[in-house]
């Protein structure tokens, strides 16, 4: 099994972290993984994205030109990546910032008001984790425990207090995508 994932949004939404958490979770489960950031000369407020591959086989191209899963956290990202999703794939749309509906009929579209749901969890900054919760519910190639282990490592001892809030964000993401 190979899952090719794109996480996209604007700088500050935590899309790079989303990808790193998925790659880390995959690695913890003994899978082959890669995480490739876009590092081009982006404008402030412009788009940021990363490509993640989680596979049972060694990873070939680390680039993702055909995605099984795409997270789009803002409108420019939706415009850029909606067509990248393969037929039968999953598109996770942050409807807090994207008012129009995705036009594709051949993919699973999951719309979440991630900002508002994040606020319920404690802060809008958990919008990315809300999206990961929805992903875990619908098509997770990794387990929730592995993602939480990744968060624990990312936060370290200093910020370990943030873990319960992120757990809530995952739970809310799961509940809201149903």
């Amino acid at each position: 099994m190979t899952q090719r994932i794109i996480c996209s949004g604007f700088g500050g939404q935590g899309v790079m972290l989303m990808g790193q958490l998925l790659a880390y979770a995959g690695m913890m489960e003994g899978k082959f993984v890669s995480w490739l950031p876009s590092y081009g000369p982006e404008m402030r407020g412009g788009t940021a994205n990363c490509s993640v591959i989680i596979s049972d086989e060694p990873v070939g191209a680390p680039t993702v030109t055909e995605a099984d899963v795409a997270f789009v956290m803002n409108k420019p990202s939706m415009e850029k990546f909606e067509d990248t999703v393969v037929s039968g794939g999953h598109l996770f749309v942050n409807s807090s910032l994207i008012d129009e509906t995705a036009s594709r009929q051949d993919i699973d579209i999951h719309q979440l008001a991630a900002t508002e749901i994040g606020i319920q969890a404690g802060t809008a900054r958990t919008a990315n984790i809300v999206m990961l919760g929805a992903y875990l519910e619908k098509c997770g190639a990794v387990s929730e425990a592995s993602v939480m282990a990744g968060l624990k490592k990312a936060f370290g001892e200093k910020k370990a207090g943030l873990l319960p809030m992120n757990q809530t964000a995952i739970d809310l993401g799961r509940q809201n995508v149903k």
Partner: protein
Amino acid sequence: MTRELIKGNEAIAEAAVRAGCRYFFGYPITPQNEIPEYMSKRLPEVGGTYLQAESELAAINMVYGAAGAGARVMTSSSSPGISLKQEGISYIASAKLPCVIVNIVRSGPGLGGILPAQSDYFQATKGGGHGDYRVVVFAPSSVQEAADLVMECFEVADQYRVPVMLMGDGMIGQMMEPVEFKEPKKRGLHEKSWATTGRQGGERNVISSLHIVAEECYDFCLEREAVYREIAEKETRCETELMDDAEIAVVAYGTVARIAKNAVLKARAAGIKTGLIRPITLWPFPSDIINDYAKQVNSFLTVEMSTGQMVEDVRLAVNGQKPVHFFGRTGGIIPTPEEVFNELMKMAEGEKHENNL
């Protein structure tokens, strides 16, 4: 064994430290900045020295000095910065000194852009600086291989007293993959008796890049040529995949080889017998292996992130036996597996057509 999810640049820096690198001199440039950043934190922990020089020229000449004193020393930069270091690299080669230079290639010429490219192939493998010398060039295709090869770079540099380059495109530097840091494979090399570490009553060591008498310069160049031949014989590295029954051979290096591999697998699924030849050393180039496969395959496809540089070495190796096609993207655009697959389909159809005539 524990694996870490780590950026290519950081993996290169950590592996260098584990290989005994204790000195790093550099100057910032994207997309390799995590190397000096990591070294600035890590080297003081192991009693080493990190120094940000005032320029690339200063950095490479600090490398020259540290190498002369027998230290394991490294510098890193990206394309425009590597151009600035070329004079120093030529001097280091002329002074018979070992060092490791990392080039995380960005697009060019000139300042170019910061995105991944392979357009420094000519510069890396055909001299770069002036004079009759060679630089051994390793081209990793994964973060794990980058870590493994940088350790090898130091051994090769010390064994033959040559500058060695690790060349990766921007993707190698920026991407994160799991890495297991292995014990460096030591080659049991001799002490650096030539190093200028103080006479201490013994013979005086002189390190110089000046060979002013023609006969002496001649002898020097021939001695080095013999070393380069030995390197070509013993250090050439290449990986082949799915080549046993291949009719079309794709030749690609670095991360592009992984993109090409996806295309090769897709072509295999479509019934086209393709395989992959991946040079791991770019100099010495695996010419013999490619020449051997020229007897087996119908044609070659070289894929690069340039307008066509390594393809010249592939053509030299094939030596007219079979057609050598080229597909490239340059300027920071990364070729897609689908594009490479389409090229393979075109070639396969062209060959079928030829067979039907």
